[in-house]
């Protein structure tokens, strides 16, 4: 069985992140580029299953700029078998419709039984791409799973729903996404890093996948981008035994209590 993991390189959310105020695109110089933390949990889920079962292969799939190749190599070091990178200048600023079309196309090209993704990326915060891919591939979806169990023919897990927790089960092929309640990722060892250098990493263009980014379909477009004014520090006092009283005064004066 082949498991594909959707990999996303993002600006590091532990540091400053910026948008370019002219283009509205991510300012790639402003931040360190890292593997999205939730992606690393998806990779961990796939790799740990591959270690515990016979004949399971893990393929990493991403679309992104050239820098994503380094992120793919680092992620291969966690124990995946191959990587697949859609790289095309026409993908700059792609909306979710185009992103899902591209990812579904490359997944269908490489062939897979199960797709695992993070539930919501830390930069786009959309959380819709996995199910959009499932719809395009004619597969079931089981998203935002807090637990995950994989067999040769099914995938099961629990997810939050209105008023309680659901246990869901999908027949493969299926697309699942996982939450940060799944185990944290392993730290790749020296052996993994050396092995990753020799693993296959294939690059695709939109033409390779037969996708026309200028097709006349509805697209989401950005109309404006504004930087929010930065917050500044206000009053700061040291507690000298009466700070609770002073805070009560402050809140009362500002009519906040």
């Amino acid at each position, binding site marked *: 069985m082949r498991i594909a993991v959707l990999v996303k390189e993002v*600006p590091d959310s532990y540091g400053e992140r910026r948008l370019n105020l002219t283009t509205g695109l991510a300012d790639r110089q402003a931040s360190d580029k890292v593997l999205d933390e939730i992606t690393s949990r998806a990779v961990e889920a796939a790799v740990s299953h591959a270690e515990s079962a016979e004949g399971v292969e893990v393929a990493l799939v991403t679309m992104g700029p050239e820098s994503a190749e380094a992120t793919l190599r680092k992620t291969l070091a966690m124990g995946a078998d191959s990587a697949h990178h859609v790289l095309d200048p026409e993908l700059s600023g792609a909306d979710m419709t185009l992103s899902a079309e591209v990812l579904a196309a490359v997944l269908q090209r490489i062939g897979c039984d199960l797709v695992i993704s993070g539930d919501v990326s830390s930069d786009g915060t959309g959380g819709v791409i996995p199910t959009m891919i499932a719809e395009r591939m004619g597969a079931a*979806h089981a998203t935002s799973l807090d637990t995950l169990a994989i067999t040769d023919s099914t995938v099961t897990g629990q997810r939050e729903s209105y008023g309680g927790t659901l246990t*869901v089960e*999908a027949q493969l092929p299926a697309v699942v996404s996982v939450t940060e309640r799944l185990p944290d990722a392993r730290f790749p060892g020296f052996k993994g890093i050396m092995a990753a250098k020799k693993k296959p990493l294939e690059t695709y263009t939109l033409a390779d996948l037969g996708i026309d980014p200028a097709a006349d379909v509805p697209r989401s477009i950005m109309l404006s981008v504004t930087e929010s004014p930065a917050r500044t*520090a206000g009053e700061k*006092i040291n507690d000298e035994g009466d700070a609770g009283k002073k805070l*009560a005064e*402050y809140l009362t004066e500002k009519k906040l209590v």
Partner: protein
Amino acid sequence: MAEQKILTYLPVLPSGELMGSAAELLGAAAQLGTPVGVIVTTPGVSQAAAESAGELGAATVYVAEHEAVGTTLTEPTVNVFTTAWESVSPEAVLVPNDIDGRDLAARLSVRTHSAIAADVVGVHRDEEGIVAHHSVYGSTFTTESATTHGTLIVTLREGAVDHRGQAVTPEIHRVELGELSPHAASITEFSASAEASTRPDLRGAPTVVSGGRGLGSAEGFALAEQLADALGAGLGASRAAVDAGYAPHSLQVGQTGVTVAPDLYIALGISGAVQHLAGMQTAKTVVAINKDPEAPIFDIADMGIVGDVFEVVPQLIETLKGQNS
């Protein structure tokens, strides 16, 4: 020109009671045109939900009841929603930005060839159509988006819209469930959550009290609960407090948790990692209490107190009680 229809997914509890997000979804729909609701339930519980939807502003409600709602994931809702879509030709579709809402939006987007605006915090109309507002990178930037043409599908961030619709007596249409796609996951079990807390929902509460690692233990976290209850506030927690097991994951405020924008945010023993700030920095007033004078939370706090939360907070609660009596 006839009023444009805004088709709105209204999620319900298994009992048939509408989820809290219904009010803001119908409120946002009312800002754009005529709100039309869609309610999909298991048999026997939809009538009350449909009437409540009218009270929240739904002029028309499409209602379907079916056993499959309890056994098949997402697909029954997509099916009914598609029927309603064909009847009303909506200008926009609004769904909650929660797990079920996102799945519905994703399936509909591909099936109907429509663009999605995700994690939207507000909407308005200009001369060219509907504009969605986004809050990006932990509210550091604000952007606006639109679709080039066709119906816009919006996933609306919970707690972000204050506008409310006006009560009407809704026209109720019963819809039959069509044939379901075989590519759907099964629901094999449902376990109801323990009785919900009586505190206001974190997402929409005007005041939020959050506790961090500085509270030291699950027992220490009770201090945040006491202050929240004294103020009638929603309760939150930093990721560090959640990871340490002081508070459940559902309370996590920050990049990977809930984003809040209350009038007053009180941070107890929270250092203020960038990922936490991403979830609360649009609060109108921020108060921070922390014993570390160098804690980054003080850089964004309107009122910062360097001190021991276990001394300052009990005195605050006592003083406020005294004022109220």
